[in-house]
C-alpha cells in the first residue's frame, strides 16, 4: 500500500470520531430538553451549563477532525 492510499484510509478512520462526537452533542441537548420540558421555569438559568457541556463534547469531535486533516495532508 502506498502512502497516499494509507493516508486516505487513515483519515477516514479518524473521521469516525466526528460521528461519535455528534452522538455526544445530541445527548447533551436531548438531556437538556428532557429536563427543560419537565421544569421550564428552571431551564433559562441552565443555558450556560448547557453550552459548557456542548463545548466539552464538541471539542473531541473537532479534535478528531483535526487529526483526520493532519493525517490527510501530512507530507
Amino acid at each position, binding site marked *: 500500500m502506498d502512502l*497516499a492510499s494509507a493516508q486516505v484510509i487513515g483519515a477516514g478512520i479518524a473521521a469516525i470520531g466526528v460521528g461519535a462526537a455528534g452522538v455526544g452533542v445530541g445527548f447533551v441537548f436531548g438531556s437538556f430538553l428532557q429536563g427543560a420540558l419537565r421544569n421550564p421555569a428552571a431551564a433559562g438559568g441552565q443555558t*450556560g451549563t448547557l453550552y459548557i457541556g456542548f463545548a466539552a463534547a464538541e*471539542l473531541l469531535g473537532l479534535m478528531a477532525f483535526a487529526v483526520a486533516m493532519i493525517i490527510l495532508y501530512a507530507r
Partner: protein
Amino acid sequence: MAAAGKIDPMHQFMINPIGSDQLAATPFQFTNSALWMLVVLAVIVVFMWGGLKRELVPGRWQASVEYLTGFLGNVATQSIGPEGRKYLPWIFTAFTFILVANWLGAMPFGIVPAAHPFTVTSQFSITGTMSIISFAIVLGVGFYKHGLHFFSLFVPKDTPLALKFFIAPVEVISFLVRPFSLGLRPFIAMFAGHILLDVFGNFVIQGINSGGPVGYGVSVLAFAFVVFVGALELLVGAIQAFVFALLTALYINDAVNLH
C-alpha cells in the same frame, strides 16, 4: 492530497503579504491576516460608536449595542459574581473579536476578486494568543488575590486525605490542558467549517464542468449543502465566541473565588 482532483482546501489558510504570495524573511510585513484583523477592529468600532448616542429611548442600533453589552455583562456577573464587571473588558473584547472575525470570514466578499476574506480565527496563533491572555489574567488575579494559597485550587475542599493524592495531579493536568482546549476550540471550528465549504464549493464547479445529468445533479446537491453549511457556519461562529467568553469567565471565577 489524494490523486483524485485539484481540490486544495488548505490554500485558503495561507498567510501572505498584501500584493504578493510569498512571505519574505523579515517579520515586519503587512499580511492578509493583519489586514483582516484591522477590518474586524474597524467593524467593531463602527458598531459600538454608532450605539453610543445615549438617547433616552434607544433606536434600533443603540438597542442592539445595549443588548450585546448587557448580555456579556450577565455572562460576567452570573459566572463570577458581583466582582465580575471588573473582568468584563476582556470578556467583551474576546467575544466581539471572535464573533466578528468568524462572521466576516464567512461572508461571500470573494465575488469581488481582490476582496477575498481571510478568517483571522482560523489560525491557532490568534486564538492561542487569546487563550494565553485569558490564562495570564487567571494566573495574575489568582496569585494577586490569594498569594500562594492559589494552589489550593488543585485540591477540592473536603476531599478525603487518601483521595487528595490522586485528585491533585488530575486537577493540575486539567488546569494545564485548559489553555490549549480554550484556544483550540474556536480555531478548529472555523478551520473545519471553511474546509467543508471549500470542498463542497469545488464539487459544484467540478460537477458543472463534467456535465451530464449526474454532474449537474451533484452540483445542485452540493450547492444546497454549501448554503446549509454557510448558515451553520454563522451559528457555529456565534456559539464558539459565546463558549470562549463563557469559559474565560468560568476560569476567572475559579481564580477569584477559590472553590
